[in-house]
């Protein structure tokens, strides 16, 4: 045998050695992350922003109708509009970045925790309350929490009395009307910011790494989406369940720490937030289905996706199993609430640990170096 030839063969074999394990596995390299981002933007985020705008507009009209003519019927209509506006807003809150963050929609519409004393201070003031002046009020004196306080804090007769005959009746009507109009305006800005024909944040997400002015790389956008999932589930666990349960207060229940305490919408709020997370993960919102984070995860590991599905279902089921209102449950059924808290925590852990590791996502944003 020609020794030179044999050495060349040996070198060639050595050079190809690294590829041996690669060839032995099924390739799954073709997942289009930009297609996923486009689908999430167009099928989930933008529709949710539009739903927020529509429902806030309806709430604004109902609130104004009640303020103009306080009566049992208009109060009921305003309360219904308030409840109807919660689900779109909480679902959209699962993606708290982008326009939701830059337009400071949360502080404009949905500041949490709410502060009824702050609303009373606004009512006790003397400055005229208009849609424009609401902008200068504190985040805890406007938006849906303030409207909730005005509409739900007392029973129907007392609310009607406060809006018609009380010492602050006129200012209550002004604040309700102005808060509704302000929230509707800001929600409209949110929808416009996502709209491809206007602010085009949906397009920025879809074009990540391909000419997007917001996302220099696709990876930055995928990291953002996954971090939104983690942040939303974490806030559900820590603030929406853990805080009322007294997890940070030595185990003493804190029923006043629930979200939407006057309307007792805490659990529907929580379910809506988790639905929003699930929509971002699956890419499916109501009748619309498309690519979601799930498809990216599946492309790497169907097993991890199966774990996420199991955890999601368990968390949603555990939240659904909380009886009555959350305010009552943290006192009377703390074990049920604790079970829900643990299930939501497990869901968050699966996204933060399994999904993030599988996708090479940097959890929390930092541009610091690594090695």
């Amino acid at each position, binding site marked *: 045998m020609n020794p030179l030839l044999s050495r060349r063969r040996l070198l060639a074999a050595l050079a190809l*050695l*690294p*590829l041996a*394990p*690669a*060839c032995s*596995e099924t*390739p799954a*390299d*073709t997942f289009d*992350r*930009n297609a996923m981002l486009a689908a999430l933007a167009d099928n989930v985020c933008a529709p949710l922003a539009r739903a927020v705008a529509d429902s806030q507009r309806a709430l604004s009209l109902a609130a104004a109708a009640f303020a103009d003519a306080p009566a049992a019927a208009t109060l009921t209509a305003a309360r219904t509009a308030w409840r109807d506006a919660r689900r779109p807003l909480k679902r959209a809150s699962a993606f708290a970045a982008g326009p939701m963050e830059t337009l400071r929609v949360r502080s404009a519409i949905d500041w949490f925790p709410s502060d009824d004393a702050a609303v009373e201070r606004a009512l006790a003031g003397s400055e005229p309350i208009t849609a424009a002046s609401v902008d200068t009020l504190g985040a805890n004196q406007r938006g849906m929490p303030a409207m909730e306080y005005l509409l739900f804090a007392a029973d129907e007769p007392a609310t009607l009395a406060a809006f018609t005959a009380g010492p602050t009746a006129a200012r209550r009507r002004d604040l309700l009307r102005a808060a509704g109009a302000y929230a509707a305006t800001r929600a409209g800005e949110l929808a416009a910011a996502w709209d491809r024909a206007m602010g085009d944040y949906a397009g920025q997400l879809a074009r*990540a*790494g*391909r000419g997007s002015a917001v996302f220099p*790389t*696709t*990876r930055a956008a*995928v990291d953002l989406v996954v971090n939104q999932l983690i942040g939303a589930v*974490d806030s559900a666990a*820590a603030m929406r369940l*853990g805080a009322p349960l007294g*997890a*940070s*207060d*030595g*185990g*003493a229940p804190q029923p006043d720490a629930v979200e939407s305490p006057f309307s007792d919408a805490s659990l529907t709020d929580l379910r809506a937030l988790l639905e929003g997370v699930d929509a971002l993960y699956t890419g499916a919102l109501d009748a619309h289905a498309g690519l979601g984070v799930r498809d990216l995860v599946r492309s*790497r*590991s169907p*097993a*991890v996706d199966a*774990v996420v599905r199991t955890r999601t279902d368990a968390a949603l089921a555990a939240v659904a199993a909380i009886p009555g209102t959350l305010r009552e449950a943290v006192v009377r059924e703390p074990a049920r609430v604790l079970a829900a808290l643990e299930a939501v*925590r497990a869901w*968050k*852990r*699966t996204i*933060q*640990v*399994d999904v*993030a*590791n*599988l*996708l*090479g*996502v*940097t*959890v*929390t*944003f*930092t*541009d*610091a*170096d*690594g*090695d």
Partner: protein
Amino acid sequence: METERLVAALRARAAAPVSSASLGALRVVYGATLLAAVVRFASRGWIDALYVRPAHLFPYWGFTWVPRPGATWLYALFATMGAAAVAVALGWRARAALAVFALCFTWVELLDRTSYLNHYYFVSLFTALLALLPVSARYALDARRDPSLARDTIPAWTLWVPRAQLALVYLFAGVAKLKGDWLLRAEPLRTWLLARSDTPLVGPLLATREAAYAMSWAGAAFDLTIPWLLLSRRTRVPAYLAVLGFHAATGMLFNIGMFPWVMVGATTVFFDPAWPERFFPPRAERRDEPAPAPPARALAVGLAAYFALQALLPLRMYLYPGDPCWTEQGFRFAWHVMVMEKAGDVRFRVSDPRSGRRWSVEPGEFLTATQARVVAGTPDLILTAAHMVRDDFARRGVPGVRVYVDAWASLHGRPARRLVDPRVDLAREEDTLRPYRWVYPDPATAPAY
């Protein structure tokens, strides 16, 4: 007798005169790189984000005595580093400037373990070593100011020192890659490259399994061989082209800051010592210089001890059971460069045995987001954080609490599993160099894909 002859031969080779040009060029390039690094760090707001804003820092074992400067002093330290880097590049009081830079930089680095990076560690060591060498012999204001510092030749050992330090970095970085995950599963490169499949032109190629395997093996081979290939005149040119290609690629693909450019500049020290003279010819007249000499005995002993320590320190990982990527014992100061992708989640469960009250504490309640991310997957940081929680409760009038943790981690795509034994009260565990009995064994299973 034989030993004496060997020592004599070694001393003769160490004292052999070589051109001072490459060490002078290294100083210029290195100083400029340090300046760029300091400006970059400050301009990105990292002084504030990493060292001013955190309520708590995580000092190193044995270095808890290092004082934490206030914001003004921190900015002053970085300003001093910037000025020192300029002085290094210009060769003005260069050795003192290198020593000042090394001191300031190391002081800052010792403040917080959550900010540990291999290349920061390298900068501390390399800068301190250069401060011992005749770096002002060429291309330096020092040589103009004090002609006795100017030298056309320097002893060979002065080039051995930076070369040995670089060789150790590459060698142990290569050893760290000789693992099943790196070689047989191409992890974590596979995960990282898939996340960068949008890279212009090469993105689709990076997303292939073959690219991940080829780059994993090539990376290990590069690290293990590059110092020797750079030393050999026959292979030097292709080896340095490989250095340029390797570090340019890692610099473009990954967030590793100035490290690639530090190494691209530093590895020029492997070249023929006279290489800069092609571009900057030496003066025609010969200088009356003292003959180069081997290092003084004390310095020789000190350097020998230093390099022995540098060779042994990374090997301490073998004293600990389990994968150092999982336990992270023996992980730092061992040149585990770009070999780990790990995500974690941690929560502290606090209980007061006297009152029976219980609390849940999230890391985000007392750490910055960056710190919380790093702490979540790192056992020794979890222990320190547990002690912070314990001490905080004591300050608020609840002494003697027990602190348990729910800590989960995923390494290289494996399913998440518990990192820390949730039954162990970390408030009573001490941070020692012994293996942590409360860290669960690393997952032996293959990743879930």
